[in-house]
């Protein structure tokens, strides 16, 4: 009998054969291990994303939710409250607002490369993607430049689950608690010393003439840090992994950096780092002969919708000329990623610098250590053998 267990290391390592079986044979599948339904076809996922009244995020959107998040953050509220919260933070994330980050990202990428200049091999995660991500996000949020390393380690830990117990272990919950306390201290700091930054804006903002509760501000800041760090450094790593394995594509980008944005979009489609999120049904829905009940959780497998041949011909091929309109790498609907403009810009600029200085690289490890996570997918180490320009 077919099973789909998002806690298993096999799914961390390679979910795509499982997704194909789901799409072709079980398009509306009850996963006992996950204790929820799984939607895997592109059209079904889009239909769900466009209908938040039926597919609610208010009970949490991570496959394994963390305490106090449901109902208190952007990703875990429904309209109209969600839209008001989003209205408050959107200003900091528009394309215009993030344009000013081009040079900081460039400088940050070069600092990271300086530190490993000339090395025959380096770990892309530790030496590049996580460093650049944390550095730039600290700038974006105007955070005090202490604890950078600690913040990054906790952000990565808090999104993981224990593969044996199939739950968040004490270390993951402790990391989440650490981040909440850290966010609390940032909120206190910006209450005492307001600045021209996002956290200050959240503190001072009013929704319906009412200030946000302290816990909402704190949880929103926690989410922004987590979403920003984990998703962006995970994605940069997946992009490097794709370019290591597809030398032709990489050489074309090195020769013509104007192609980088198209390659970013194809990577977001091909194997995005944000693989699966969940919703909670507000009414019974019958789909492909199955009846899902109000109150049931439903997993939206974005990573599978992105490989659906019904939408993307020859979907298992990595093709930087594809221009995959409507891919689900950033989700969709009202909860579509807040950080898209920033993530696109940071990915483009970071890879412009990387490919200038390291036009040739390949993967050292045969088997990669995949992060144990039901929501996200990326390796925890990616050693690259580099030929420096």
């Amino acid at each position, binding site marked *: 009998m077919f099973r789909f267990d998002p806690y298993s290391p096999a799914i961390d390592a390679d979910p795509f054969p499982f997704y194909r079986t789901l799409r072709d044979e079980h398009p509306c599948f009850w996963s006992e291990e996950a204790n929820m339904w799984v939607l895997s076809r592109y059209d079904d996922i889009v239909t769900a994303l466009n209908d938040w009244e039926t597919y609610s995020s208010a009970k949490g959107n991570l496959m394994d939710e963390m305490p106090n998040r449901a109902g208190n953050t952007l990703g875990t509220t429904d309209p109209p409250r*969600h839209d008001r919260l989003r209205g408050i933070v959107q200003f900091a994330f528009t394309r215009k607002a993030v344009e000013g980050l081009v040079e900081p990202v460039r400088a940050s990428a070069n600092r990271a490369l300086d530190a490993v200049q000339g090395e025959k091999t380096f770990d892309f995660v530790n030496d590049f993607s996580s460093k650049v991500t944390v550095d730039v996000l600290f700038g974006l949020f105007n955070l005090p430049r202490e604890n950078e390393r600690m913040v990054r380690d906790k952000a990565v830990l808090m999104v993981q689950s224990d593969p044996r117990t199939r739950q968040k272990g004490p270390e993951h919950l402790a990391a989440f608690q650490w981040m909440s306390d850290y966010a609390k201290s940032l909120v206190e700091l910006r209450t005492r010393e307001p600045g021209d930054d996002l956290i200050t804006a959240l503190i001072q903002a009013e929704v319906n003439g009412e200030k946000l509760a302290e816990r909402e501000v704190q949880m929103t800041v926690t989410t922004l840090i987590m979403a920003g760090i984990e998703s962006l450094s995970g994605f940069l790593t997946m992009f490097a992994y794709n370019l290591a394995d597809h030398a032709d594509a990489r050489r074309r980008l090195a020769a013509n950096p104007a192609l980088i944005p198209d390659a970013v979009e194809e990577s977001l489609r091909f194997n995005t780092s944000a693989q699966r999120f969940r919703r909670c049904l507000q009414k019974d829905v019958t789909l492909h002969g199955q009846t899902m009940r109000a109150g049931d959780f439903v997993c939206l497998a974005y990573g599978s919708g992105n490989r659906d041949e019904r939408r993307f011909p020859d979907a298992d091929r990595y093709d930087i000329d594809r221009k995959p309109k409507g891919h689900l790498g950033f989700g969709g609907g009202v909860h579509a990623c807040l950080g898209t403009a920033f993530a696109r810009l940071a990915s483009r600029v970071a890879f412009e610098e990387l490919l200038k200085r390291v036009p040739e690289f390949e993967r050292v490890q045969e088997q990669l250590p995949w992060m144990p996570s039901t929501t996200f997918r990326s390796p925890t180490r990616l050693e690259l053998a580099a030929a420096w320009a």
Partner: protein
Amino acid sequence: MAKITFIEHSGERLVVNIPVGWTVMQGAVQNGVEGIEAECGGSCACATCHCYVDEAFVDALPAPSETEEAMLECTAAERLPNSRLSCQLKVSEALDGLVLRLPEAQS
């Protein structure tokens, strides 16, 4: 389904069938209409899904909400009397045949 025509600023016309209950913006994004950016995903928080509604349909649409009114003040291209945010327009059978013109810039 309602058949909706988007006219890009370049003059290119795209005719798209959008399911009832979706927003016009959602149908545009799904079908790769270039002139709709929709940075906020339809939360009425970015004004990058701005469109000009064909005069014949202006009165057929429900009036903008207070939030849409406020966001319409933030469009990158000029706001005209027939300006709307496409993420706030719910598709119904009554919108079959709707024609929308897209502005030169969204952001």
